[in-house]
């Protein structure tokens, strides 16, 4: 029988010392930002019912979820996303709470990814959700918080991108074609596959809408993108989406991150609980977005509580990977090791405690001799050893 007792499952890893210290320090940094804005932390269970992630707009591909069965035969999943469970909590236990709700979380999500592609199945995420307001003020709060998070991580090397899923939805819904073709158009826009998108749209027809959709994946960059978008199609709803986005963009540029805030109207995620403004954040040195989010006004209604919401999540592991290239985090090493001679062990423990109360990190020696203690201290780079016997003496290692 082959035993798997010495390795961790595919897509998971142990986090030791420096890596752990780095994750915790990132957590503290982001928690401090979220808390200072009045967000309260919540924790949702690691296991949820499958149904939470499998209805209309909260669709998760079932092959991407880790599943198990509870003692009543019901299907459970290991949490693949935090926003949906939080929407569930907001729609149930927080239903009578004063709006808006400001919630934040730091927990793992689990997604079954193709093996051997070098990506983790277990992702440590932190994020915020602002529930109960559809106002531009709410959008600006969440967007500017996301920018603040990115700039607090890598002030020079981040990029923040803004879009509005409504632009694509309005256009594609005017097309006289079936849902699977619309989905194909969406996926081609998402991967900016210009040639295949052109072929597909040509086969549907040559009109203002197909021409606008052809341009959609190219609509990324600075404010000029919005000017181009405005010329593509003239329609009350679309004009409003563009002018709202322009308003938001102009507000955000007042934060002063010149050139770091850009627009991409081709952000059309598969995860389609988003209904309006969407965002992505990138750090130089990681090949995928490290932050993503947006407005999801219909999601809570699916849990029976019809309120609008917006939020974002940060992939903490991805950030840690980037930070490791430029920062060193070290796990703490003891300052002193205290050895107690036979008969003086309790004296040594008391002496060590006295040193700790002065703020030092102190190890109690578990070795039988002072020489072994010093050899160990040298290997571990502990700078000072203390001998406790009839006399107390210190020496630097």
């Amino acid at each position: 029988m082959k035993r798997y007792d010495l390795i961790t499952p595919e897509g998971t890893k142990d986090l030791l010392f420096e890596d752990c210290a780095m994750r915790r320090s990132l957590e503290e940094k982001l928690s401090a930002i979220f808390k200072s804005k009045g967000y309260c932390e919540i924790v949702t269970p690691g296991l949820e019912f499958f149904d939470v992630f499998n209805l209309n707009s909260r669709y998760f591909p079932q092959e991407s979820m880790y599943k198990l069965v509870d003692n009543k035969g019901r299907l459970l999943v290991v949490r693949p996303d935090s926003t949906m469970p939080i929407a569930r909590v907001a729609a149930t236990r927080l239903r009578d709470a004063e709006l808006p709700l400001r919630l934040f979380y730091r927990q793992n999500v689990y997604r079954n990814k193709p093996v051997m592609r070098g990506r983790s199945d277990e992702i440590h995420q932190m994020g915020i959700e602002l529930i109960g307001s559809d106002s531009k003020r709410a959008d600006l709060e969440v967007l500017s918080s996301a920018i603040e998070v990115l700039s607090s991580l890598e002030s020079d090397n981040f990029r923040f991108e803004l879009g509005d899923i409504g632009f694509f939805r309005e256009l594609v819904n005017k097309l006289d074609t079936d849902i699977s073709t619309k989905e194909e158009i969406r996926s081609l826009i998402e991967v900016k596959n210009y040639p295949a998108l052109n072929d597909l749209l040509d086969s549907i027809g040559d009109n203002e809408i197909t021409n606008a959709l052809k341009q959609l994946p190219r609509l990324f960059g600075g404010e000029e993108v919005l000017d181009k978008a405005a010329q593509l199609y003239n329609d009350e709803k679309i004009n409003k989406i563009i002018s709202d986005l322009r308003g938001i963009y102009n507000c955000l540029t007042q934060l002063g991150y010149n050139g770091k805030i850009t627009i991409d109207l081709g952000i059309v995620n598969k995860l389609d609980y988003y209904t309006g403004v969407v965002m992505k954040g990138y750090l130089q040195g990681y090949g995928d977005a490290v932050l993503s989010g947006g407005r999801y006004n219909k999601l809570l209604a699916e849990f029976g509580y019809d309120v609008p919401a917006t939020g974002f999540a940060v992939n903490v592991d991805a950030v840690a990977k980037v930070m490791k290239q430029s920062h060193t985090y070290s796990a703490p090493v003891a300052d002193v090791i205290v050895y107690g001679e036979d008969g003086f062990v309790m004296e040594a423990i008391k002496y060590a405690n006295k040193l700790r109360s002065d703020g030092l990190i102190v190890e109690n020696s578990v070795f039988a001799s002072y020489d072994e203690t010093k050899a160990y201290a040298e290997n571990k780079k502990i700078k000072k050893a203390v001998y406790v016997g009839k006399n107390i003496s210190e020496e630097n290692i």
Partner: protein
Amino acid sequence: MENEKRPLRIALTKGRLEKDTVALLEKIGYDCTAVREKGRKLILPVGDSIEVVLAKAADVITYVEHGVCDMGVVGKDTIMEMNGKFFELVDLGFGRCKFALAGKKGDNFYQGYNIKTIATKYPNVSRTFFEKKGMDVDIVKIEGSVELAPLLSLSDAIVDIVETGTTLKENGLEVFEDIAPISARLIVNMVSLKLRQQEIESLIKLIEENL
């Protein structure tokens, strides 16, 4: 960080696509001497602003997906088999061939109620193709000459790349059905396109003008 100043890194699929891409880059005006006289080196400078990395097709996708290469040239066949998250910006037009379902000449593949066995180097492409038809098939992954499988009666048919069809013909096989056209694609990492938009867009413009 180092990334800020490093040249634009392009992963090329070793072999024919590499030669066609180098020809294209030379047509645009890049000096590709280093690639032509590469010896055993795997990372090679092209002009001052580009660095070429030579890799196997599937690895091109992996490198681009992770952002360690900004762009890549890879066949649509590998993209269809591997999937992955990247932008697929340009159909380069060279390396043209097709995916096809083929088998022994004269066989009627769809006849009968038995579950068909398919031999292929491309299990994902095969599975997707038959899924769309609502057909259950047994798929056998073969690494070398797939044409052998129907000849040795291991499979009822094969899913493979067909260029001229000569190999099929010489072995008494024929194409039953075309699955998808294939050509070389220029793929771009999702973050690189945003962080190095100007460099990448101007290179793509040059490429499109010279196709």
